[in-house]
């Protein structure tokens, strides 16, 4: 026993020597967007400019808590998330700096960034209706609200209300229709459910394809992924609310932290991410839509058709998220 006991100590010593920190002039990103969607962009940026980018990935909640706890000592220069709600919350907790950049103002439409310039959308994620081409007749689908109609009884599948995408959708409905009306609609959805809510969008679409229900609400890139793998699936996209406010969109986006050590470098990176050069890659890596209107969507994605999208400022999604969650709890939407 005594003979081998030195080994673990040696190993431990070796491990503890693994360098903890990054080089002093690297840009540091805390990202809730997953690695294989950001790394190709970061690599391209490093190749172009010679600026290194180090990052860690995690859920937005823990990353936000960490930046807040680290305070003025935070190594983070930039926070990236995959929804507007968490960016709004980061701004609300005062960990993001206001960035004045004509480049960002030009590249990114006003409703996809913070009115006070603390966060910016970098790709659009449209949340729309996907339906069975076998069982849904023309004219049956109109809007998100329409899915609450009794004619949809037993025909609807939904993802859980615990996913932020649905929380944002309902928050934006509250912004548009008020709390009372929205609650009626959500109750209607729950009454129409064919089966308890699913844990993810893909499962909900597979249930539609298998005949368990006739329509569901999903982000388009999940539809793209499913159809690429199983092109024969009898599902199609419907763009709702086209004569009204338009399709609900969310963003993935980023902001520069208040105590960033490399604030200027981080702003440059942000500007580049919104540029024509980067936007193509940023959006098409995950079959999302670019925010920069000068850039066309990936041809495969563009094939799903043009649509009118909601232009309410996405800050509302964060501001009203807690109320949306409470509303869905009251309505029994799990």
């Amino acid at each position, binding site marked *: 026993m005594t003979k081998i006991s030195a080994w673990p100590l040696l190993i431990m010593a070796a491990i503890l020597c693994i360098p903890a920190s990054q080089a002093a002039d690297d840009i540091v990103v805390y990202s809730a967007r997953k690695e294989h969607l950001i790394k190709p962009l970061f690599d391209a940026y490093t190749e172009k400019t010679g600026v290194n980018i180090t990052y860690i990935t*995690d859920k937005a909640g823990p990353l936000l808590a960490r930046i807040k706890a*680290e305070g003025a000592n935070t190594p983070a220069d930039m926070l990236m998330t995959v929804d507007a709600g968490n960016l709004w919350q980061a701004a609300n907790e005062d960990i993001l700096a206001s960035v004045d950049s004509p480049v960002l103002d030009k590249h990114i439409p006003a409703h996809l960034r913070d009115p006070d310039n603390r966060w910016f959308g970098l790709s659009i994620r449209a949340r729309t209706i996907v339906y069975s081409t076998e069982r849904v007749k023309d004219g049956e689908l109109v809007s998100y609200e329409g899915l609450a109609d009794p004619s949809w009884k037993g025909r609807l599948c939904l993802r859980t209300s615990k996913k932020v995408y649905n929380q944002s959708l309902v928050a934006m409905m509250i912004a548009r229709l008020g709390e009372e009306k929205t609650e009626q609609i959500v109750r209607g959805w729950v009454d129409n459910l064919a089966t308890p809510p699913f844990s993810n*969008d893909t499962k909900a679409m597979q249930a539609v*394809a298998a005949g368990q229900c006739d329509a569901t609400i999903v982000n388009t890139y999940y539809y793209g992924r499913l159809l690429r793998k199983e092109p024969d699936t009898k599902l199609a996209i419907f763009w709702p609310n086209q004569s009204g406010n338009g399709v609900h969109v969310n963003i993935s986006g980023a902001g520069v932290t208040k105590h960033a050590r490399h604030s200027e470098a981080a702003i440059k990176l942000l500007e580049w991410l919104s540029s024509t050069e980067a936007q193509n890659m940023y959006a098409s890596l995950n079959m999302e839509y670019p925010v920069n209107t000068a850039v066309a969507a990936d041809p495969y994605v563009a094939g799903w058709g043009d649509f009118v999208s909601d232009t309410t400022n996405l800050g509302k999604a964060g501001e009203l998220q807690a109320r949306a969650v*409470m509303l869905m709890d009251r309505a029994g939407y799990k």
Partner: protein
Amino acid sequence: MAAAQPSGGAGAAQASASSARNFLAYRWQLISLPIAGLVLVPLLVIFSGWLNPETETWRHLAETVLGELIVNTLVLLLGVGAGVLMLGVGLAWLTSMCRFPGRRFFDWALMLPLALPAYVLAFVFIGLFDFSGPVQGTLREWFGPRGYWFPEVRSTGGVILVMVLVLYPYVYMLARTAFLTQGRGTLDAARMLGLGPWGAFFRVALPMARPAIAAGTALALMETLADFGTVAVFNYDTFTTAIYKAWFGLFNLQAAAQLASLLLLFVAMTLLLERRARGRSRYAEGSRGGQPHRIHLTGWHAGLATGAATLVFSAAFLLPMLQLLAWAWDIVRAELDARYLDLLLNTLMLGISAAFVTVTGALLLAFARRYQRDALTGAAVNIATLGYALPGSVLAVGIMLTLTGVDNFLQSVARGFGFDASGPVLTGTIAALLLAYLVRFLAVAFGPIDSTLGRIRDSLPEAARILGATPREVLTRVFLPLLSPGILTAILLVTVDVMKEMPATLLLRPFGWDTLAVRIYELTSEGEWERAALPAITLVMAGLLPVLLLVIRSARSANVAGRAERT
């Protein structure tokens, strides 16, 4: 310090024995209190959420979902508790005490489900058996859309089944160790006194294994309470759901911390009650060691035993592995690259070094409680083993807040001395990760070690001292050999648990430093479960290594233990 006082009427032998105890007792509080402190500080950080009471969130939860969540949680605990007891104890008895076809294989194979993260099994199960899955798809082809009956997979029964299949190995491994170290003397005596095999099981073996079984069940139930991934895949709402809802949905980390601290209180109370109920009874081993006479199962008994073991092994391991392999097959050429070697090495290195740190900590705690039976040490030990009951992300944030607190302090001190303090000192180092794992997994290491230690009679080390052994020799030649089955079980459990761990690894790891669990997170966070099959399989393979180690060593240590007891 009751243990240090010589007991009345001290003869020479007793005086010598108590001085041996005295020596060993010397430093225990100095050791147990700091370890408990490491766990206590992050827990206190979480409890400090109460400094800002959140009435609105509480009122909302109480008015809407809280009642249902509590009922759901209790149902889940009951179901999982009953299930892991039945499977864990039953299978451990079969493989360690009986003889049936395939026993030697199942003896270790039944530990393998441990290496599979619970949420992965959940996803595979739903994928295969839900309405849109291949099984029901085939049924629909044969019998038409309404022509067959199939149980609802995304249901209370489904989530209980999956959690039992993933968590029973905790009970199985601890009970197995207990049965194997019971030795044959006790059981032979019971049989000679007229008990049948069942009587010997229920009236002798089972009561004697109670501390081990209780420890295993407690681990399984703590993991059930803390679980978020599995219940999320089933969309089955438990108390943990409320914690995450408050945090991620309502943006209220304070309320989440308050809910989490209630969960912790509940666990602490339950553990206390169990220890009370067990009372002062001691479970010392009463006989010489050696392998027991196995009960030779024949005919349909043997068939039933093999059948049950096969069924559990297939459902909990074989089936999910085949599904993962099928998924991985499609993507392996596109995804498998040199990075996987790094991921594998990082994962193994973390798992093994965390096991070393954590098991050492647990050993010290277990000895502290044995040799210092005062309230303070007892409380320290109880606190030190609470980390496992908290949802991973909440504990991770508690630890992160503690570490950044220290970092911020160090940085301000450094600046005070005129240094340019850039970047954190602790956060984002491997040392911080190991500390986090220690806090989270002490309970996992403590359970098997403490239940094994409890079976060593005081007379053994005392006799060794009388015969002239130094305290060090008592440790290395009496305790460690007798403890080795428990230590090995602890090493295996912690290694595998650390390799699967996600929230603390994600939040506290060094920049650009990934593990297999991190890779699984990256892929599953946006629903790409099929692509996650590759890191998941690699993770299971990594988990096989410590299992093999345990199998090899436990075969050898059975002999060593036998020799040591005869010394």
